């Protein structure tokens, strides 16, 4: 492989690895928070209301994440 190809391959893999890592962190936190909120007393299966709650909770968490991201990034840009 020549240099340009090696470079773009490395970049691709590095970015993919960071993206996987980011997704994993998000998934862990969504599961934790939404299980806590939506399945307070785990039964023998997930009821449909528990499933609905979980879906809404996931959306809410991601909206919350976006809000924090925008606020945090604005602050760190200010303090430079």
């Amino acid at each position, binding site marked *: *492989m*020549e*240099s*340009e190809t*090696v*470079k773009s*391959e*490395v*970049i*691709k*893999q*590095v*970015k*993919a690895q*960071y993206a996987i*890592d*980011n997704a994993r*962190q*998000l998934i862990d*936190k969504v599961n934790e*928070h939404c299980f806590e*909120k*939506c399945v307070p007393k785990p039964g023998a299966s997930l009821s449909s209301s528990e499933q609905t*709650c979980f*879906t*809404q*909770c*996931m*959306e*809410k*968490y991601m*909206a*919350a*994440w976006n*809000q*924090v*991201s925008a*606020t*945090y*990034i604005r*602050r*760190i840009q200010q303090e430079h």
Partner: protein
Amino acid sequence: MSSDFSPVDSSNLSRLSDKDKTELRQIMTNEEQKARVQASVHSLTDICFRKCITGTIRNGKLDKNEEGCMANCADRFVDVSHLTLKHLQNMRG
């Protein structure tokens, strides 16, 4: 997903020109920094979600109160982080 990638081993890496090496180092530094910011956002969202989203979940959107709370929470956390840093600097004297 691994089938999308050609193997990048040390023999391939040795083919990098100095210019491409320098560029790669910069890109790695940028990606590391972006990852640190992402990690902070994850941590902050974790904390603030618990503080701001109380009670039963009724829909998938943030209402005005929740939205404001998340923003304030992030802002105030940054403020106290600065306080901590300042205090530590004072302790060092």
